[in-house]
């Protein structure tokens, strides 16, 4: 039986909306400024940007304020807002070699060209609560600096490119005709094109992407990679100028990129037909600073390349349908809506079964008595 809706309750619903506002403000104090949320809840804003699939720190901060800090609901608002704004162009596809790096580490190689830079990371810190933050009244941060003469816009070559030069990894040629699939405008049908899978993964819910990536590491998949490189930094946003028809840069976005080296497999060189063993790669790139998600994305990207899936994590439909925040929370949340009619039907059925059982039991006991 399908879902049967209900009507009415308008006044109560409107009052409930006001009550939400009341609960948001009831403790008084100074209203949070959107700029404060944007500046000081950096990673939370990045999460909303990534899952809302809209790079707008300001809108994300407003949404977070409105939803009293519920990132999933905030992402929902951001996606809804996004659907009201016209898309007027595509950016010129950017290569991550152009990234202005603030963090770059490799767990595959100790020494990499340009070096490893820890950047703003809590990875090596103790997990102790800094109670002194309770009394913080002003910022007093003066990070150490180290003189660096390197060119600011010099591209930083990738670790995997070195492996490619050594013939340990495939070196694909870019297809200039390839146009990325757009899951926001085209229907999702399986098997999905890889560009569509990447788009679906990058806007996936942080926790869901992480959980599925973790499941692969625990054996519900076959990917357990070594990180070639984690990069965090700014990528330029380039468009074609509408009047000049030349590329121009309009700004920068912060992203996290991960390349994971996975197991090696037998590969045939498409030009020479020669067979050899090469490493395979998984790729992750997400808006904002979110290394967990980018690493998990790279695991899932590789796992979903499986031609013959043998585990749920290699199944495109299983992974890609369940990582989207809008769909999962929407479906779970709909359970709260009145299901009076469908439940009444279930109730009728179970009552009729119970009645039939009672009837049978009465008949049996009467028969027994008769005997």
């Amino acid at each position: 039986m399908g879902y049967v809706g209900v009507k009415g309750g308008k006044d109560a619903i409107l009052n409930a909306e006001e009550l939400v506002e009341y609960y948001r403000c009831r403790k008084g104090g100074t209203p949070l400024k959107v700029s404060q949320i944007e500046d000081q809840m950096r990673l939370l804003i990045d999460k909303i940007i990534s899952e809302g699939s809209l790079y707008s720190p300001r809108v994300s901060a407003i949404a977070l304020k409105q939803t009293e800090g519920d990132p999933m609901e905030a992402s929902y608002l951001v996606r809804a807002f996004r659907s009201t704004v016209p898309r007027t162009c595509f950016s010129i596809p950017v290569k991550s070699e152009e990234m202005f790096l603030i963090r770059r580490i490799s767990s595959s190689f100790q020494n990499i060209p340009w070096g490893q830079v820890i950047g703003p990371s809590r990875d090596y810190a103790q997990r102790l609560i800094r109670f002194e933050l309770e009394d913080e009244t002003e910022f007093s941060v003066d990070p150490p600096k180290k003189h660096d003469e390197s060119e600011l816009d010099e591209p930083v070559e990738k670790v995997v490119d070195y492996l490619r030069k050594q013939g340990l990894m495939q070196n694909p040629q870019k297809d200039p005709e390839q146009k990325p699939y757009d899951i926001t405008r085209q229907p999702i049908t399986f098997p999905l094109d890889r560009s569509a899978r990447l788009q679906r993964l990058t806007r996936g819910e942080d926790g869901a992407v992480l959980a599925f990536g973790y499941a692969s590491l625990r054996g519900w998949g076959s990917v357990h990679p070594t990180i070639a490189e984690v990069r965090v930094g700014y990528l330029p946003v380039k468009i074609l100028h509408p009047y000049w028809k030349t590329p121009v840069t309009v700004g920068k976005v912060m992203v996290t990129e991960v390349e994971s080296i996975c197991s090696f497999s037998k590969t045939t060189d498409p030009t020479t037909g020669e067979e050899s063993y090469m490493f395979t790669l998984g790729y992750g790139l997400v808006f904002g600073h979110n290394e967990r998600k980018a690493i998990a994305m790279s695991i899932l990207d590789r796992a979903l390349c499986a031609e013959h899936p043998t585990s749920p994590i290699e199944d495109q439909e299983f992974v890609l349908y369940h990582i989207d925040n809008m769909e999962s929370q929407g479906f779970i949340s709909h359970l709260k809506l009145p299901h009076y009619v469908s439940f009444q039907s279930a109730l009728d059925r179970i009552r009729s079964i119970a009645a039939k059982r009672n009837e049978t039991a009465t008949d049996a006991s009467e028969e027994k008595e008769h005997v």
Partner: protein
Amino acid sequence: MNKEHVFQILMEADGADISQLAEQLRTIVTHRVVRKPARELVMFQAEESVEKIDFNVGEILVTTAHVRVGEVIGFSMVMDDNEAKALDCALLMGIYEAQLPEADQIVKLVRILQDKQMSRLREEREIVSSTRVNFEVMGGQDPNIKHNSEL
């Protein structure tokens, strides 16, 4: 400095740094707002490195404006929701492209902004460089084990 460079510096500038000049020129240069500042989306595309394919990462909220100055239309596209900055940038780009005498003031401002943006980047690079690391393998390097430490 070419026009693309001027465009980039103005679009990436802080709104407060260009508003004063824009305000001043707005009163003395004849112009017409062809398209008021409007929110738009740009789909951001990146090339991934496994198969070198392009994919859609997500959309970026931008604000655009079009301002006519003489025979040219100054266009701006600034990040996020920022009507005032979009309008200022479109006006300045229009004046710059129309090569009015006031364009010199814009070039002068752009040079200042360029220095500011470069020094901001340089500072960020220096802060980040202080965390440059060279991890050592615990227990020292065993000469019998071939380490993959060097590329």
